[in-house]
């Protein structure tokens, strides 16, 4: 197969920035989404804005799709080129351009790894709260494109709440700067906020300005253990209803706890039905007061034990263990398929009961963990892709779970995005009119549908 696209890209950008061998294309055919694999025609490793521009211009003259990609840790297939074309890697654009400690902002290129931002600003007493599970690998460009969440979402919000300005390349290779470093900016449409979470279907970011906050002075970390997962879910609702917003309120069920303990060996109890990882942060006096409220909420809802982390290391260990949950679940069975439903917090016990029921009804092993504090749960089916019957049951189980989440006033995706994997569920979620509006917006930016096609909108509905 002669690859003329790759040849032209090499001519325009230089050989070292274009990958197009068989193995290279194979390795860019996937991200972290199970069962999704499509090979691009070429991969461009952009090192600067000019590379992005030239790639888009060449794609325009060839009439082929362009799909942006960071570290490839996405869980909805957002960075997989389902219609082929060019994969545009931004990992080579990984410079921190400015930390403005006086005005509390940081300006970065899209390929900067999220935890690099944390380390950089925390050394200066500042704080960038969004902390998706993959933060040590994921790029900020991907986080903005997917509007990634994380463990601190309930108190501090998610990626989009921190984006101040975006330099964005449009499909024709032109660039626009939306937003400023100002906290207030209502000049014209708020395109900045709109671009967040568009999953690479509207534009490609080349420069990102993020808002920072002061680093909290104190924190307290609790581990609450439960003999019944429903009690853990009730605790979550109880804490929120007492008007305390912890900085983290995470749930892990028995299956997840055991897989995580298999890997980390930090001494999580294997015989409990669920645990909550709770953290409160801020001024020491407030932390003290909230800690007491959390304490009684746990005990009132039949927590078996409640333990406070004795050192920052112990707290770190617990958080790291929690971030490993999804990958650790992959130990149990060959294939791991997770979902990302989110429901209003009073509905968490009912949602959890539904997941347990579905697991039994379809005879599927499900491990559930998630950001219970913001209602965002990750029921994860542990299965085997070589067993088509079981895979069919997995999909049936998820349909029931999605229907339930929607009927409770929730959503099919809290933080992983619609992407390729969930596009067919979107119409049921938002309705035909909303789909039509979204398609009109998409067409205004990308009339030829060449920017990350095959995402968000279900294929049959196009």
């Amino acid at each position: 197969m002669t690859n003329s696209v790759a040849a032209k890209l090499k001519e325009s950008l230089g050989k070292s920035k274009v990958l197009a061998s068989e193995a290279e294309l194979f390795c860019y055919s996937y991200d972290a989404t199970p069962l999704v694999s499509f090979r691009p025609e070429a991969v461009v490793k952009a090192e600067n804005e000019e590379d992005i521009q030239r790639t888009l211009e060449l794609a325009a003259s060839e009439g082929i799709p362009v799909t942006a990609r960071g570290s490839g840790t996405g869980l909805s297939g957002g960075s997989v080129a389902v219609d082929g074309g060019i994969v545009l890697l931004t990992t080579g654009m990984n410079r921190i351009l400015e930390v403005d400690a006086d005005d509390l902002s940081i300006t970065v290129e899209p390929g900067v790894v999220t935890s690099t931002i944390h380390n950089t600003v925390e050394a200066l007493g500042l704080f960038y709260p969004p902390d998706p599970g993959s933060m040590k690998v994921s790029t900020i460009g991907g986080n903005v494109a997917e509007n990634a969440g994380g463990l601190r979402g309930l108190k501090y919000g998610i990626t989009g709440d921190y984006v101040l300005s975006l330099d964005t390349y449009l499909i024709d290779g032109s660039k626009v700067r939306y937003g400023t470093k100002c906290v207030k900016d209502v000049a014209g449409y708020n395109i900045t906020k709109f671009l967040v979470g568009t999953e690479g279907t509207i534009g490609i970011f080349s420069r990102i300005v993020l808002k920072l906050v002061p680093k909290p002075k104190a924190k307290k970390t609790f581990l609450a253990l439960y003999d019944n997962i429903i009690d853990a879910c009730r605790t979550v609702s109880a804490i929120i209803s007492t008007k305390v917003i912890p900085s983290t309120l995470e749930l892990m069920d028995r299956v997840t706890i055991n897989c995580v303990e298999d890997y980390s060996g930090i001494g999580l109890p294997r015989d409990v039905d669920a645990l909550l990882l709770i953290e409160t942060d801020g001024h020491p006096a407030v932390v003290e007061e909230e800690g007491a409220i959390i304490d009684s909420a746990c005990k009132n809802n039949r927590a078996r034990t409640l333990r406070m982390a004795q050192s920052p290391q112990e707290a770190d260990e617990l958080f790291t263990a929690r971030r490993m949950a999804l990958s650790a679940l992959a130990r149990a069975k060959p294939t791991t398929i997770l979902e990302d439903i989110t429901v209003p917090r009073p509905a968490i016990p009912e949602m959890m009961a539904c997941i347990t029921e579905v697991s039994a009804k379809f005879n599927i092993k499900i491990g559930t963990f998630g950001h219970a504090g913001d209602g965002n749960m990750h029921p994860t089916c542990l299965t085997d892709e070589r067993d088509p019957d079981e895979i069919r049951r997995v999909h049936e189980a998820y349909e029931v779970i999605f229907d339930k989440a929607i009927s409770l006033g929730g959503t099919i995706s809290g933080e992983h995005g619609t992407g390729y994997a969930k596009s067919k569920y979107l119409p049921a979620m938002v309705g035909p009119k909303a789909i039509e509006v979204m398609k009109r917006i998409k067409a205004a930016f990308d009339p030829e549908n060449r920017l990350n096609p095959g995402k968000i909108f279900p294929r049959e509905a196009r």
Partner: protein
Amino acid sequence: MASGIDPEKISRSFAALDIHDYGDVLQCMRCGLCLPSCPTYRTDGVETETPRGRVAMIKGVIDGRLEANEEFIEHIYDCLDCRNCQTVCPAGVKAGELVLEARNRIEENRPQPVIKKFMLNYAILSQKRLAKFMPPLRIYQRAGLQSVVRRFDILKLISEDLRLMEALLPPLPSRPLSDQIPEEIPARGREKGRVGFFLGCAMNLIFGDVSRASIDNITRAGYRVIIPKEVQCCGTPNIAEGERKVYREMARNTMRLFQDRSVDAIVTDCAACGAELKTYREIFRKDPVISNIAEEFSSKVRDISEFLDSAIDSSVKFGSRPLKVSFHDPCHLRHAQKLIIPQRNLLRRIPGLDYRELPDEGQCCGSAGIYNITHRQRSMKILEAKIESIDRTRAELVISSNPGCLMQLMYGKRQHQKSWNVCHISEFVNESLKLGENV
């Protein structure tokens, strides 16, 4: 094809990977958590040079979706076998070991170059044979030839690889250590037990003084040391290059040499040897004749730090070494043997020592057996990052416990004119114990 590679033949051998290995391949859920820890992802920044990518490619070959062509083989050989990916993988995917499995299947199905056959099937079988290479090299170093060659950079005219090979070699001893010591050395003071000492090739031939210190440390801990002289190579180079027949032969011989010697432990001061010797139990697990012997053998193997940290009791005194010190973990110690604590514990017992952790601890130094020769440019990039992290600690001395790491770090020190020194943990501990004795 000129290279004599038959991708279909290789693919067929991959398809026959047994179900256990296949399960490991499938268990990779491609989360990418391995990416930042992988030295080749750090240098190259592309998916083909990641554990996730290698696992995906191997799976692709098994499923018939990727051809096992020359490019595939290249990526499989770009891995340094540092196993950092295995340390960080929450799903328990053994990406590093899968790569070795893939290499074995590749090598069994492609023609072998003569020089490689000579080294892996012949030279390596006997340390005496290997020792024959040493005198000419030593003459070269001692007769002033080396300084002329280095001053005028003569080898650069021939080949960069050759130049590096030359530059990596430290001053060579006149004879291998095995020619200089008895087969049994008694314990100092009351004998607490018997230890078999495995004399690795590189230690015996190049770092004889280090092993002499290791043995002395063991006797100071109260153990009689038995040193079988006829040991062969542990097999690490063979496994790394996909060779397994000679490997098994050598392993059997080694296990035989330590059998019936009533030793409580088998100690080695080479991290790579230690990792390999501990693996024999896995390699022979399905062999009904020898599985018990291999199990017993591997269960006795201890790295020198692992052994000394528990064997040296409070009656043995350490002398003060007021130095700023860092420890560079050999990958075969930290990732393959999962040993992180003992070497640090041992160092912290030395009075006056100012221990400083290397930033980015657990990263490979780029030595990786002969990787620095076969993949010179990438290896040098990895080394530069290591040097940078050493510099940041402001350590005066970098300690390690693997001959490959020692040569690589010593080369880095010379090349970049660093003021810090490099030594093996046994030498350092030995000096401290000798000082402690006089207190």
